[in-house]
């Protein structure tokens, strides 16, 4: 019992340390950039030629330093960040001042969760099935074709694929919209609404699913299966005369599922940072696009908010996997 407690405690300490280090890094890095949100805003006002009283600009500058929480030395600012985080207050967004960061994240989060949870699950499922089958039947032509496709697709930057998909399926064959999250007016919750949402999510999702399925998940399950199928217990099962399906399902898929489930957990934890480029290319209103805007506008509070969510997502996923692993995998059960 005490060993179990120590095991749990050590994992929780690791989790807390990860979060503390993560927050510290996210605090320091934006402040090291040659960028100051207040001066950038003033510079922007100059550059668009808005008419301002010259004395008013100076008072604007001073007020903004205060409102954005940029007064005080870095230690005071760092303490301020922790004080706010511990009271679950992420502060106001600088780029959308004075809207609270939490409000903006709560608007963007459902879009990202919807898009990425589904596409990660679909690509994980398809990738693993196809990868395992291809590896098992590696001498067949379809396996060679799929492996070739995976090798080609894996290194293709996914935003290039996103642009190609947009050109083909939103312009040449206009099945899907060019971008956006929803284009329906005056309709309550209905099938039309759901279909409209799905239609907008389709291309972004496909641009994640294709390289995901035929990229990482395919290649990893292919490799894992290749390795497992040369092991003695598989060879024994084959020699015993078990049908291919049984060998595949009971001897191979189950064995490769463990590492793949770990990777899935981490991938699901990672969705809290959004799919940055996909969301930018398709004007999809998720967390990735929000993070991108926050970085180019040096919205310290927003960068902190989204990063914290991402850090928590990955660390919690790791913690849960660590804690659950002994329960589901007899080979690593803590003794």
């Amino acid at each position: 019992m005490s060993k179990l407690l120590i095991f749990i405690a050590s994992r929780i300490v690791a989790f807390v340390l990860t979060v503390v280090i993560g927050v510290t890094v996210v605090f320091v890095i934006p402040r090291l950039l040659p960028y100051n949100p207040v001066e950038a805003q003033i510079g922007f006002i100059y550059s668009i030629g808005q008419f301002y009283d010259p004395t008013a600009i100076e008072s604007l500058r001073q007020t903004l330093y205060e409102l954005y929480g940029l007064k005080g030395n870095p230690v005071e600012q760092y303490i301020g960040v922790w004080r706010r985080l511990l009271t679950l207050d992420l502060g106001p967004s600088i780029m959308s001042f004075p809207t609270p960061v939490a409000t903006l994240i709560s608007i963007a989060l459902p879009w990202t969760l919807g898009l990425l949870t589904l596409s990660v699950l679909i690509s994980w499922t398809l990738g693993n099935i196809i990868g395992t089958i291809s590896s098992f039947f590696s001498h067949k032509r379809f396996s060679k074709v799929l492996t070739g496709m995976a090798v080609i697709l894996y290194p293709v930057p996914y935003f290039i694929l996103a642009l190609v998909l947009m050109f083909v399926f939103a312009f040449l064959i206009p099945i899907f919209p060019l971008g956006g999250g929803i284009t329906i007016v005056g309709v309550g919750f209905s099938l039309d609404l759901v279909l409209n949402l799905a239609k907008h999510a389709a291309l972004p999702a496909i641009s994640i699913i294709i390289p995901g399925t035929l990229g990482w998940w395919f290649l990893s399950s292919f490799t894992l299966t290749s390795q497992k199928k040369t092991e003695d217990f598989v060879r024994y099962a084959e020699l015993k005369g078990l049908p291919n399906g049984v060998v595949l399902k009971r001897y191979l898929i189950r064995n490769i599922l463990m590492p793949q489930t770990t990777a899935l957990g981490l991938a699901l934890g990672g969705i809290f940072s959004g799919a940055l480029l996909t969301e930018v290319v398709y004007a999809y209103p998720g967390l990735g696009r929000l993070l991108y805007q926050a970085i180019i506008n040096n919205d310290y509070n927003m960068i902190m908010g989204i990063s914290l969510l991402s850090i928590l997502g990955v660390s919690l996923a790791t913690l849960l996997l660590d804690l659950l692993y002994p329960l589901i995998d007899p080979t690593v059960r803590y003794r």
Partner: protein
Amino acid sequence: MYCGKIYGVSGKIYMPLIINSKRMNGKKSYIAISAALVLVAALALSAVPVSYGQLPLPAGVPRGDVLVIENHWGTYANPNNWNPIASPGVGPASIAPGGSGYQQLCKAFLWYINTSNSMLIPWIAAEPPIYSPDFTSLIVKLRDGVYWNDGKPLTAEDVVFTLKYLKEAPAPIGVNEKASVKDARALDRLTVLIELLSPNPRWHYFYAVIIYGAGGILPKHIWEGKDPQKFENNPPTCAGPYNLRAVDPAGNWFLWERFDNWWGSKVFGVVPAAKYVLYINHGPDEAKALAMTKHELDALRTLLPEQAELVIKNNPYLKGWRASAPFAWPLDPCVKGIAFQTKTPPFDKREVRWALAYAIDYRTIYRAFVGIDKSTPTPAALPVIPHAADIETYYIPLLDYLKQYGYDPELVLDIARENNAWWVEKYPVLGFWKQDLAKAEQLLTAQGFKRGADGKWLMPDGTPWTIEIKTTSGFEMESQRIAFLVADQWRAFGIDVKVTPLESGPFSTSYSIGDFQVGTFWPGCSQILDLYANWFNRWSSKYWVQKKGEGGHGTGWNTAEAPIQELDRIVDELERTDPGSPRAFELYREALKIWVRDLPWLGFFPTPFYTFQDGYAWDNWPTFPENYYMDPVSWWSQHLFVILKVKPTGRAPTKDAIMDPKPLRIANTPLVKIATAAEWESLVGRAPPAAGVTTVTLRETVTQRVTELRTQVVTQVQTQTVTAIDWGTLSGVAAAVGIVLLVVGIAVGRALGRRRPAQ
């Protein structure tokens, strides 16, 4: 409409997969099943009924009823906040003044300035503001018959409320009102008297649309008692011809519906043709170009040359600044080029700046900006956008003076003529400083520069001369092209040049704090003849704020090595001069001569903008020269006048669009009226101070203002010491936290490690 295409193509896609599946046995059919599922889902989605293409419109609305304009700010993080005052500045920070259509269709502006002729368009105000003879007060007369779209009249009470509400709101809201307004009161239902803290004949520019971000009147009955920071103003109460109909919860589009009971329809007799106006962000440039090719976007801001080419080649109905090529609008309000940090040696010497100017081959730069459609930039050697009126007021009268500095009015005339530039026949005077390498060499040598053994320039102290040019990255890419072209030419002249592209944030920061040597910044913005309106006030040292240990804010003259007394005098006098008077223009010409002598920055031209307008569904766009009633700029508030003028072509189906709308006829007036003492007395009901006393008051006020500024300088320095980030401390904290974490981590690890062997 798409069925044929869909089935045809999808057939091609899934047939090979089915063939494959036949080769496999039943257990191996996962791929075929998965692929089939994806395709079935795609086909099901493609069957979703839409009104037109992919545009968000109410069911049954035909394409011809809707005008589609680009939301150029992109996805809004919070599409529900329509508070136009809480966020400082403009841009993606705030939905209300941005690309949502609010400032074009809804906001209540007192005046607009017609940028194509520098005249005032009184809108909710009935006429130009009337200033007291000493410019310490002004009267605003409102138009009779103006209503908010909820039926309440828009009166002097709303104007007074707006000014007082903003003045009393916590900063940064209302910084202009706090700095300038002493009091405001209604003289009658439609007349407002505004008293100012100091004389200012241009106070009304805060409430007149010049380009962007002008103040609007707030409806008192909506805003009274509301928290100015937290009130979301959703949906906004408009005074324009459209009301907000629907908002994309994802923040990309905003749909406005025509308000048939609009006050303007009664007062001016006009009804806009479009039943709906949609502001939409389709995504990156590629998506916008595809949308315009598909006629799903009627007006956009600009595109990079490659995307512009795609639209030009594929949309036969395309219009731009002209009805046919060349399309690009050549009169953007900012002269783009390079700026020097004139407090940093060696750029603090005007001779060095001029030497660098003479080392530039302007013809090469100009030719590089000729577009595939023969669009050409309009040369602008002065920091003044060369509209016709500006050429006549500034460029032609100063021609002889400019020639003393090597200005060649024929430098690019042949290139411009080849490409049919708009100015070439009527104003063949727009040129630039001619390249003169011998003069550049002579100026540098006189300053102690010399060439090394390798022919490269050495600084007066013998060290190699390297210039860093900070430029844009990911936005305003034309400026980046300028940086690389200039760098090549300076390198050829023997100077090492490094180009540093920066994203908008670091770029704007460098500009604001003056952290640069040379940068492709644009302090030379002007859109109307009264140059003061665009930062000319910052040409006076009384408005500079120097920062301790830094070069000072990099806003053009603010970086100058020392106050220039002649400029200070000119700005002082301008602040007491009728902005439309001949004396004002004389003063501007004097100031421009000083600018030429000192050359604190070097503008080349306003970079051409492909402000495309699609003539497929809508016509009567403003096009030069035959129908140039307004600049074709869809992101400015003045685009309202374009929206009131466009007509359906009949090519797209219509239901509620007005096929032949009545044209809007509205007088353009001078920028201000200055009352005589007697007129002012009759307007306000009391005598203004006697003339002699007025002068004394003015001087006192100006002195007082300078004193206040000095106080502010001290405050700034003190504050700056506090706000400056102490990287030593920061690194120390980071290191300390890291070490603590490391120690804790090792301790935990060891504790666990010690237990493990026992297992």
